[in-house]
């Protein structure tokens, strides 16, 4: 047992750091570090830069154009990216649909879809939840009927994150009403430009447009876009959720946030002293720092486990989201009354107008509100605890 990184891993970290130093554009870094409004072009530009370097997919095997990195290397890469102020890569393609296509898709699908995900040319979104099917995902009703060489899709998806930008959506659709609800679900890849698809924005509580409803009205989808077998989609969906949950631990990003929070606590004034000298605030910061360390090492433990991530991925989702939410909450609290103002126009790079308090206070309450989603989506934390209770503890 040795919790230290090996010399090779340290060298790898240095290599990543140097690459980021030299290649992460300043405007992107600034946008990310100031927690300004995310921007599609920025995400695409950064993906292209990584792609050109051969680092487009840190979690993929080499045969599909990935880096072939070990889990520890993947984590080092993610952490360095977050610390440098690189934007998050788009999970929906890289970490969600791609592993499904690699594992369950046919050769033609791998050839057709993986390159666009890797280069960032294709923007993917997720079509899982429906208004009546959230935690109870298996009750989904969006239907796909096979008619000749294509499916006809009807129904509605919701909470579709960044669907307004998407070229493709991977959907769980109902292809059968026989047997248990889980048995009639299929996994379908749908071109967002197909006639009959309508995307409607949902404005979130921070006033931002991040999620959408997606309506399907007699949408014709080529039968060849079915992944794996008809009515086996639930298996693929569960496989994907396992991947999503590991990603949701988000340790790299939280470490970068923790670093920033400590800097903010040193800068913010609490009367005649810096906030960091306020013992109540600092104790809570220390507690959170310790919890983040526990999460970081637990992620490494789970990811280096040769048996692969099982239901204990739920631990990572729960702890990752709870810690993330607390980080944003403390950033808001650090700003105190400076955090109360809502200045949406200040979330753009060129904003020069008035604000309340420091630049860190500006996005802090909005971010905190927005981050309440973390314990709700990707399988709510209540559902994750059910998974632990049932699949790990056998209750």
């Amino acid at each position, binding site marked *: 047992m040795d919790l230290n990184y090996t010399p090779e891993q340290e060298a790898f970290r240095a290599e990543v750091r140097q690459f980021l130093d030299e290649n992460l554009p300043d405007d992107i870094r600034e946008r990310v570090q100031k927690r300004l409004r995310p921007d599609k072009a920025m995400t695409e530009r950064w993906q292209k830069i990584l792609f050109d370097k051969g680092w487009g997919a840190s979690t993929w095997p080499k045969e599909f154009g990935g880096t072939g990195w070990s889990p520890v290397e993947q984590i080092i890469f993610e952490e360095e990216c977050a610390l440098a102020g690189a934007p998050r890569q788009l999970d929906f393609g890289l970490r969600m649909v791609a592993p499904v296509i690699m594992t369950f898709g046919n050769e033609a699908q791998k050839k057709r879809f993986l390159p666009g995900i890797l280069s960032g040319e294709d923007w993917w979104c997720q079509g899982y939840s429906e208004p009546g099917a959230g935690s109870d995902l298996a009750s989904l009703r969006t239907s796909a009927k096979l008619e000749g060489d294509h499916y006809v899709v009807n129904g509605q998806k919701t909470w579709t994150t960044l669907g307004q930008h998407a070229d493709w959506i991977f959907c769980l659709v109902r292809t059968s009403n026989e047997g248990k609800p889980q048995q009639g679900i299929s996994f379908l890849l749908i071109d967002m430009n197909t006639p009959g698809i309508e995307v409607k924005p949902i404005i979130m*509580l921070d006033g931002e447009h991040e999620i959408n409803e997606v309506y399907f009205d007699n949408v014709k989808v080529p039968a060849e876009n079915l992944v794996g077998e008809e009515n086996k989609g639930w298996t693929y969906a569960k496989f994907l959720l396992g991947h999503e949950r590991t990603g949701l631990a988000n340790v790299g990003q939280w470490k970068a946030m923790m670093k920033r929070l400590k800097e903010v606590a040193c800068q913010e004034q609490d009367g005649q002293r810096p906030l960091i000298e306020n013992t109540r605030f600092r104790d809570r910061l220390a507690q959170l720092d310790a919890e983040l360390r526990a999460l970081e090492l637990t992620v490494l433990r789970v990811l280096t486990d040769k048996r692969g991530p099982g239901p204990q991925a739920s631990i990572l989702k729960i702890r990752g989201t709870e810690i993330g939410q607390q980080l944003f909450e403390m950033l808001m609290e650090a700003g105190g009354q400076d955090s109360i103002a809502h200045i949406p126009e200040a979330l753009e790079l060129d904003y020069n107008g008035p604000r309340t308090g420091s630049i860190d206070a500006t996005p802090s309450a909005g971010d905190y509100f927005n981050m309440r989603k973390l314990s709700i989506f990707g399988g709510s934390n*209540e559902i994750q605890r059910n998974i632990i209770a049932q699949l790990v503890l056998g209750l």
Partner: protein
Amino acid sequence: MNFDLTEEQQMLNDSLRRFVTNEYGFEKRGEIISSGAGIDRATWANFAEMGLLGFTFPEDFDGLGGNAIDTMVVMENFGRGLVVEPYLATVVLAGGLIRDAGNDAQKADILPGIASGERLLALAHSEPGARYNLRHVQTTARKDGDHFLISGQKTAVLHGAQANQLIVSARTSGSVNDESGLSLFLVDRGAKGVKVDDFATHDGHRTAEISFNNVTVSADNLVGTIDNAFPAIEKAVDLGIAALCAEAVGAMEAMNAATLEYIKTRKQFGVPIGKFQVLQHRMADMFIHTEQAKTMAILAASEADSDDHTSRREAISMAKTLVGQWARYVGQQGVQLHGGMGVTDEMFAAHLFKRLTLINLLFGDADHHLAQVSDGLLAKTA
């Protein structure tokens, strides 16, 4: 011991409940928030007619001679309906200050104007870097003949841009953290040298950053005695905190009602999600916290008018600590139980959550007030 509202307070409560339900709905509130001023003059005139704006003023100055319990009744209902009008700024904070510290001429000049709804005032006290320390004032008022010249920067001035007049704290002697040496001045918002930046807040209210650059104020605009304003400022803020605690309780009750309704109707796995024990227990905790918060809001209101400094400060800070913590729990869990719907702008629950969050940040968060209680404890045992 008696926790009952008086008959008049009960009537006030009933009529306000009707008003908020019937005339200050979610859509109407949305229109007010997105309007230029961010407040609704017609509603304000309505409040004046109902007698709300002078409730706590002496009868000699067009008031009804009420107390902080009356304010509690008002604020609970405002919390329930998320009313965004400048009641806290104008009536509770500024009105309370003039009532408690102003001279008769100032009371005669200002209080009837507030009561009739014609005048809006705001308290400009907090400063950048002060965080929640009330003594931390760097704004100065320099005597210049029979005038004062005020210079400095104020932050988190609730409804500052909407006010006709500001009550500004400034240092007339002493250094930045001294309790003594503070004075209060009435300053016209439009006076030369006053610069106001108006901001919307996340919960639909307004706040201002205001700078004063050699603003000339005549000596008769001094409120209270020179150098000795701190106790009055502290008391006004305590009145404000008691009001915010009551508002939080109203918002918590509304959150519980909305959440209960949601988990009874939202079905997953073939049953209303309220059938799941984990959600039942969560909802039970939300209910427990709200009932306890209500008790603390009553304690705060009962002590807010008191001149017994130690007992008032302890009660107010205990209340703000616990209400802050419980409002956080109820806000977060109310959103959580609404699932994805809870994080959308269209749900009332999301707006209740935002107000509950910001209430915790105003005039000292739970950490700050726990420190106050803790310091008081040490002083008593030492």
